[in-house]
């Protein structure tokens, strides 16, 4: 009925409305995929894309980044300005970089970078032109050029090409760098996120100087460069790792390569593949492409098969002696083996034929060799003429394998039954060389096992079947056939997929990590110290690890106490390739790991024993990789990849262990302080009472006090012209101190102390080391009426009693 409506007409009608969609047009309709879904978020995303670009550009050019971000209200719109001191962009490139989506230099690189797709900044341009109708204003000056280039441009959404409104040269005070100015419809509801992003960027890029201006700020927010911070180590681009490619990529690489052989291709195009690894991949590839050949046991003594006789019979016209010698040699060589596959028989025949040719000066042509091979192979399969005979012989070869592969509880009869049925499959197989893939073998075993279950009333489970397949596959031999060439593999999707599987199955060394630029634990520390006024900082950088062929490094840092806000959950800062992740906290692997750790073990409060812990602390996690797996295009959350999660956990735990020992120490110091305070009330009262009871002056208690607290007691006494500083170490470890005495008169005979005069005060400095339980005396001569003051470094205040 329907066919009468004329389907062909509809198709044509539809075809008229079908046309190419421009990429710009597509993103215009899918803003959310790039993080421009709301006015609040758009601003954050635009800042983020601009700053990421600037940082990448500076680092590539070995310039310490100096970045300026300004947001201001301009009539109904917000104006965003981002400036950097990067290398600048050439006149020709400016329109493409900012006015064309998916234009970039990094997409094809396996290297750690912030941006990758080349979408970010042009998407911001697109968003701004769509909401405000204003063009992006770009100023850029390359190093050494006297003037800067100035562009005003928009993106032609139909063609994804830049449309230039203004193009001129201008002057700019920066010697080099780039400035972009965008106007867009937006709001500052995400102020918090913006601040977080800028602040966290400063933490994670201690080598960068960042200045931030927005309408609610009275003065620019400045994040200075950490002292001694250097540019991150330069990253190297690496070739892909065999474990990390997809089939499509592999096919493309196969097309593009200059190599002829697969072995050459592997070694040329991939990292960590040498001759040996290539050989293992190839063997594995052959097994998948050609299958393996079943290897059978040479005829046993009790069997009647006679390889020598059969080979002799197969060879004609080669002279009696030569033939006999050849036949016996082949038989001996076969007998020497535990099991022989068809191609191995052929190899033996070839080797012995060559020997006989040399010894007897005769020729063994390929026909003869082939006949001899088949004759010998036939004997390996059994001595009889019939299939039944062969089956019996193969069964006896298979039985030990089946027996080995299965548990001891299986009945002998069942194993025998399975072996017989398997043997039948081989006897009946079309390929007389008994060459089969692992799948074919699994099929044999499955069918034999099914039949055994059905007829022998036995059970043969999946594990048992798998074990049998494994055991038999192990004795089968990889064939020596040449693998397909690169060009034929490129044309054959199945072969390529077999190659890919072989690559994934082969053990290959992890990729090199020169392509990664971790912040390093030292700089994580200085980043945290720079931005947070805390009491304690810890950081840990893990060794590189691999997920899906991409190397990655995880770093963690913790700041605790001080000015950090107490009374709520700790702040978790997430970073990927030095970019702060601001949105989708709950979807991030980092957050999941932080929640899963038992923080009570590390001295933080964690209601219920799981979840984000409470306390005045900041936990930061940085994942650096050539390919950070994100949960979405907008790159807000790290995906739950087990390898990465495990490294995140180890990194956090490493830093948390330091936190724990700090908190423990702090707690014991606190107890110590409390004890000291308590005793400082009790003992003087006791001394006062004793004085009144005994009618004496009040006794001196500092020394007893120091002894009680196991403190280091530093005491200055004077005797005539001599001042003595006595250091009594009551603690259980040795003390390395810096004792500085400041006196108002010039000291004499200072016994090797370092004396510095400053404005009429003399700084006398000793560095004594006093072992546990020992006392040291530092003596010098001075006018003992002069004022003096003693300061001691090298021991915690709680463990020090100074008396002077």
């Amino acid at each position, binding site marked *: 009925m329907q066919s009468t409506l004329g389907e062909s007409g509809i198709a044509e009608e539809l075809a008229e409305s079908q046309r190419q969609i421009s990429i710009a047009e597509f993103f215009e309709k899918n803003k959310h995929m790039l993080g421009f879904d709301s006015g609040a978020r758009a601003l954050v995303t635009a800042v983020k894309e601009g700053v990421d670009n600037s940082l990448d550009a500076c680092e590539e050019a070995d310039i310490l980044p100096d970045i300026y971000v300004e947001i201001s209200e301009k009539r109904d719109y917000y104006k965003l300005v981002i400036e950097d001191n990067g290398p600048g962009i050439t006149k020709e490139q400016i329109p493409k970089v900012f006015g064309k989506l998916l234009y970039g230099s990094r997409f094809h690189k396996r290297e750690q970078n912030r941006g990758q797709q080349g979408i970010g900044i042009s998407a911001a341009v697109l968003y701004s032109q769509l909401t405000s109708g204003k063009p992006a204003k770009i100023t850029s000056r390359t190093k050494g050029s006297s003037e800067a280039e100035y562009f005003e441009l928009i993106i032609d959404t139909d063609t994804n090409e830049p449309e230039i409104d203004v193009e001129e040269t201008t002057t700019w005070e920066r010697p080099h760098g780039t400035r972009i100015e965008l106007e867009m419809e937006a709001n500052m509801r995400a102020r918090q996120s913006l601040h977080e992003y800028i602040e966290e960027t400063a933490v994670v890029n201690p080598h960068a100087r960042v200045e931030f201006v927005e309408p609610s700020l009275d003065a620019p927010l400045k994040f200075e460069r950490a002292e001694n911070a250097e540019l991150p180590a330069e990253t190297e681009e690496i070739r892909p790792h065999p474990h990390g490619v997809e089939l499509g990529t592999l096919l493309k690489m196969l097309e593009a390569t200059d190599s002829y052989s697969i072995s050459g291709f592997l070694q040329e195009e991939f990292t960590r593949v040498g001759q040996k690894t290539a050989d293992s991949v190839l063997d594995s590839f052959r097994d998948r492409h050609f299958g393996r050949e079943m290897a059978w046991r040479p005829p046993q003594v009790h069997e009647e098969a006679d390889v020598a006789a059969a080979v002799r019979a197969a060879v004609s016209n080669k002279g009696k002696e030569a033939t006999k010698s050849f036949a016996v040699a082949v038989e001996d060589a076969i007998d020497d083996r535990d099991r022989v596959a068809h191609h191995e028989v052929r190899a033996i025949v070839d080797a012995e034929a060559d020997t006989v040719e040399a010894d007897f000066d005769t020729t063994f042509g390929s026909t003869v060799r082939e006949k001899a091979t088949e004759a010998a192979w036939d004997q390996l399969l059994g001595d009889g003429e019939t299939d039944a005979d062969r089956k019996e012989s193969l069964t006896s070869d298979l039985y030990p394998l089946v027996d080995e592969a299965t548990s001891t509880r299986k009945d002998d009869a069942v194993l025998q039954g399975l072996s017989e049925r398997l043997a039948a499959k081989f006897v009946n197989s079309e390929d007389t060389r008994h060459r089969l893939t692992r799948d074919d073998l699994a099929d044999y075993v499955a069918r034999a096992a099914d039949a055994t279950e059905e007829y022998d009333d036995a059970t043969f489970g999946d594990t048992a079947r798998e074990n049998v397949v494994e055991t038999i596959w192990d004795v089968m031999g990889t064939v020596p056939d040449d693998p397909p060439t690169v060009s034929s593999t490129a044309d054959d999707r199945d072969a390529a997929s077999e190659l890919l599987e072989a690559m994934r199955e082969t053990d290959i060394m992890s990729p090199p990590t020169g392509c990664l630029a971790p912040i390093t634990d030292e700089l994580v520390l200085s980043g945290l110290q720079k931005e947070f006024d805390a009491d304690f900082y810890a950081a840990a950088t893990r060794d590189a690890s691999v997920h899906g062929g991409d190397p990655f490094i995880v770093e963690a840092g913790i700041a605790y106490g001080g000015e950090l806000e107490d009374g709520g959950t700790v702040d978790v800062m997430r970073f990927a390739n030095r970019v702060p992740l601001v949105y989708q906290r709950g979807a991030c692997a980092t957050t999941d790991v932080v929640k899963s750790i038992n923080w009570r073990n590390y001295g933080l409060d964690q209601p219920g024993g799981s979840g984000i812990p409470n306390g005045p602390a900041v936990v930061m996690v940085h994942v650096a990789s050539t390919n950070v797996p994100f949960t979405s295009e907008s790159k807000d959350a790290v995906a739950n990849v087990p390898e990465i999660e495990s490294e995140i956990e180890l990194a956090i735990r490493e830093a948390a262990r330091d936190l724990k020992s700090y908190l423990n120490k702090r707690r014991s110091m606190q107890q110590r302080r409390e004890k000291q305070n*308590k005793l400082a009330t009790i003992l003087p009262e*006791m001394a006062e009472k004793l004085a009144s*009871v005994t009618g004496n002056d009040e006794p001196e208690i500092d020394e007893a006090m120091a002894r009680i607290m196991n403190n280091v007691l530093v005491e200055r006494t004077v005797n005539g012209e001599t001042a003595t500083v006595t250091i009594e170490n009551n603690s259980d470890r040795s003390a390395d101190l810096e004792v500085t005495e400041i006196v108002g008169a010039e000291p004499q005979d200072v016994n090797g102390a370092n004396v510095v005069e400053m404005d009429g005060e003399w700084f006398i400095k000793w560095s004594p080391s006093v072992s546990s339980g020992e006392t040291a005396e530092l003596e010098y001569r001075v006018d003992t009426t002069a004022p003096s003051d003693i300061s001691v470094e090298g021991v915690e205040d709680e463990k020090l009693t100074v008396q002077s």
Partner: protein
Amino acid sequence: MSTDNDINYGEGDARERLLALAEQFYKQFEEGDVPQLQVPTRTKSNIEYDEDSDVWVYGDRHSTRSAKTVSGAQKLLKATYTIDFLAQQLDEDRSSTLRELYYLSESWDLDEAQFNDQDESNQLVEDLEIVSGATREDFHMRPEESGAKVMGPLLLREQTNRGDREIHCQDDVGQGGYQIPNNPDTIDFLDHDAEFVLCVETGGMRDRLVENGFDEEYNTIVVHLGGQPARATRRLIKRFHDELELPVTVFTDGDPWSYRIYGSVAYGSIKSAHLSEYLATPEARFIGVQPEDIVEYDLPTDPLSDSDINALESELEDPRFQTDYWEEQIELQLDIGKKSEQQALASHGLDFVTETYLPERLEAMGIL
């Protein structure tokens, strides 16, 4: 005894001894040492038999109250305050009770110096006794409970606050008998007709003996112990034995707690082993009720409770009870699993105890 001070009870100036202790703390401070006080550990495992004096005294184990710890420092602070108080009290020749000391501490300006409970202040006074070698009577510290009562043919003179009094403990007293003062060393014995001393655990039995005229008939000084005997009672018993050369016997219930009452009269208590020489009467002998008597006289009984059994077993391990006699009796009692009160003797009639039981037992012990 292994404290540094020689024990010389009742002699020397208690005030001087206390001040010497304060001096010691003072010196420790001055020399930069941590003030500390060593006292013998007051537990069952740290008492040993002193061959010379036949009493149980503390062994070599010491605990140290040291200012190294907050609690130790607090103890020493309290000790200092208490010394101050006692020295003042002695100076003014006044006295106070242990309980008063506890309440008095509330008035000390420093919170840390105040006692948390009376056990603490009692223990501190014991510490001071041990270390200073004086008794709390020397410090003019009285227990709340005074000594018990005495009835018998004895004439004595007591120095009271209101002058000396001569008292005959049968003729000059009522049915209740003569009340032992807190410090029995204020008593002088003038004359007596007594043959022996009979210490009785319960008030009911004492009244029975007095009512039946046992003290008159047998010339006995009947001392009412009233549970665990107070120090004054024990001191007086010791003086009866030492000064009047009277044999001392103890008559209690037939259960493990009563054996301890006998033990404290004869051997001294663990808490006051430092005063054993002053308080204990090692020659005191146990009349009963013996476990043997429960069987012999077919007395009404109660079964031993679990705590009784524990107490008996703990007595078997107590060095003070490790004699053939006690081991035999305690094992017998554990064996029969029964105990009897003194009053159980009344099951044979009200006069049975004075006419049959005591004469038979005293004769067997060679006292009558």
